[in-house]
């Protein structure tokens, strides 16, 4: 891979200056009525390459904004789902795009959560805090700290492949859990916990009722905007030179090395970016509840993130978001079960209870999706789209 790959990709018969960022780039137009005919490289690589995608995204965003009229408890849940989506996109970068299995996502989420909480915490409080409540400081700090943790793990990760890596990252979760449980001054200790980061931007508190809306509405809009920012960044990363290098490593790392992708550098980069996303997600995750405990960053959290990526769709940003929303909303759905199925109990001491069903569903859904629809929810969407595209000749 040389520095200037932009010109190489230009299709034959097209003026070079219509390439991406070329001098005097003329936006080549598609012939009328031929929406799938690409006449320029830039069209092929565009973020939203068809008009239907543009319209669809606009509709989705419009709907997401309109959803802020929902009751507060649902809004809080959706906000948590959006934050989880940021984390799932991060895991998708390292596991989906770069193909490096990581069961250690919970550890990086924890690093981010504690960095943010410490930076914005009360300096006179029981736990460590520096009193800088601006989100502009603690959010990047959380991302940077988690990315640094990712870079520190990467030398091990770059040496190991496949399942060895999965086990090492699993070990990381246990070691991290131990450190966070013991480091009382930072984390408040197990069972006690500490207050989370304060979501404040230019003096505006998102975690309080204001003239603009209720607490839930402010948090919802904040998380929605941040999710869009992070999702677009990930999508852009995936279609850039770095993203192509990741895909090459995933498909066959030796072949990638042969065509000139420096493996160690790109694996390190994948871990750093993914951990950075996890850190930001961790920082935001607990601003909704306001309080968190070191026991929450366990293997189950890692499995949940894996479930989000696999249920949503591996190596797709929209899939990761769909999967995260699905997994986050699942408890809310299972809560309704006792009303529908009389043998399911809402009481934790009875045996088929909703909590058991909820945990079992994570596992069952992972298995079912992998066996029957490996591309996840995204794959189902692709199939539905293909059906209607070729309708009435779809069979």
């Amino acid at each position, binding site marked *: 891979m040389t520095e200037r790959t932009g010109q190489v990709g230009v299709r034959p018969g097209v003026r070079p200056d219509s390439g991406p960022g070329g001098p005097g780039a003329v936006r080549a137009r598609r012939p009328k009525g031929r929406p799938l005919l690409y006449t320029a490289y830039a069209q092929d690589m565009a973020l939203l390459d068809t008009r239907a995608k543009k319209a669809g995204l606009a509709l989705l965003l419009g709907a997401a904004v309109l959803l802020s009229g929902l009751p507060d408890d649902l809004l809080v849940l959706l906000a948590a789902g959006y934050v989880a989506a940021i984390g799932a996109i991060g895991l998708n970068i390292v596991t989906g795009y770069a*193909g490096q*299995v990581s069961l250690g996502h919970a550890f990086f989420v924890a690093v981010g959560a504690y960095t943010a909480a410490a930076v914005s915490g009360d300096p006179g409080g029981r736990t460590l805090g520096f009193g800088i409540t601006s989100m502009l400081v603690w959010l990047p700090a959380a991302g940077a700290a988690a990315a640094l943790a990712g870079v520190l793990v990467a030398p*091990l990760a770059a*040496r*190991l*492949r*496949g*399942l*060895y890596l*999965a*086990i*090492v990252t*699993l*070990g*990381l979760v*246990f*070691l991290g*859990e*131990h*450190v966070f*449980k*013991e*480091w009382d001054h930072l984390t408040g200790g197990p069972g006690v916990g500490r207050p989370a980061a304060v979501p404040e931007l230019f003096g505006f508190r998102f975690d309080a009722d204001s003239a603009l809306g209720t607490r839930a509405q402010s948090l919802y809009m904040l998380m929605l905007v941040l999710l869009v920012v992070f999702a677009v960044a990930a999508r852009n990363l995936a279609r850039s030179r770095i993203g192509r290098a990741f895909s090459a490593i995933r498909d066959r790392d*030796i*072949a990638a090395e*042969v065509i000139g992708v420096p493996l160690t550098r790109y694996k390190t980069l994948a871990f750093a970016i993914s951990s950075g996303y996890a850190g930001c997600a961790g920082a935001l995750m607990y601003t909704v509840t306001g309080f968190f405990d070191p026991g929450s960053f366990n*293997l189950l959290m890692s*499995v949940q993130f*894996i*479930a989000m990526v*696999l249920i949503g769709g591996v190596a797709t940003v929209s899939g990761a978001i769909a999967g995260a929303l699905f997994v986050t909303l699942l408890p809310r759905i299972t809560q309704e079960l006792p009303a529908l199925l009389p043998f399911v109990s809402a009481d934790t*001491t009875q*045996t*088929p209870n909703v909590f*058991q069903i909820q*945990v*079992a569903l*994570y*596992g*069952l*859904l*992972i*298995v079912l999706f*992998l*066996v029957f629809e*490996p591309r996840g929810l995204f794959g189902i969407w692709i199939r539905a789209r293909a059906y209607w595209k070729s309708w009435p000749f779809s069979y």
Partner: protein
Amino acid sequence: MKGVLESLVRGLGNGSVYALLALGFVIVYKATRVISFAQPAFMIAGAVAVSHLAGTTGFYLAVPLAALLVAGLALGVERVAIRPMVGRPVFVVAIITLGIDVVVRVVVNGFIGLDVRQVGDPWGLSLVEVGGLAVQQRWIAMLLTTAVLVSLLFAFFRYTRYGLAMRAAAFDQETALAQGVSVGMVFALSWALAGGLAAIAGTFAGTGQGVDQLTWIIALKALPAIIVGGLDSLGGAVIGGLAIGVVESLVQSYQGDLAPWLGQNFAVVTPYAVMLLVLLVRPYGLFGTPEVERV
């Protein structure tokens, strides 16, 4: 010195549980090239089965019964969820086993309830004097059982027809298939063996302190054991398991005095720390085969 030796024996006892679990991991890995994250579920299922059976059949009959039961369960899981995935990337299959683990554990937890269940073993926490050392009886029982099982297993692989088939399939699946080895049977047998071993390990993990909803965590400590020993080495699994047990036990005894800054209960996570250290030096474990890639 006496303290060190007693700690060593405790480590060997716990280590033999890890060794049994690690053997299960390695057997499945050698046959299918997949790490089965479902081992914790099989382990806890075995322990719970023994705790329910021991009342009617007695402990000594309950253990083999439970092992057979869990082997059957593993066989079913392999047939339903793993066999259709032959040829798919190992990561996908590994994650499927993770999903199975979660599901089976939830079901088994329903049979545990909120209290600690006793497996009905005859040893409890009682001690016996061996050469001036106070040793818990259950550790001796664990070590002896493991020694017998490991020798049986190695003899099985070395001398029987099925053992030969398993070794052949582990060496090269396609060639084995061409020689008339039923590779599907090898997959099934490896899962059943792993399930049975896990059930016995679970029973021993439950002796003395009983089984509760968190006992499954013990099974994950066999993962460092197989990494230390090497993913594809049966001997490495046994040595790795015993080594992890001994190191954990020594740390448990002395870390509080020697290195208090590591925090309480550091012993619980020592296996993972040992694993990271070994991997820094030998990425394929002590006895594992380095992977040779051909382009």
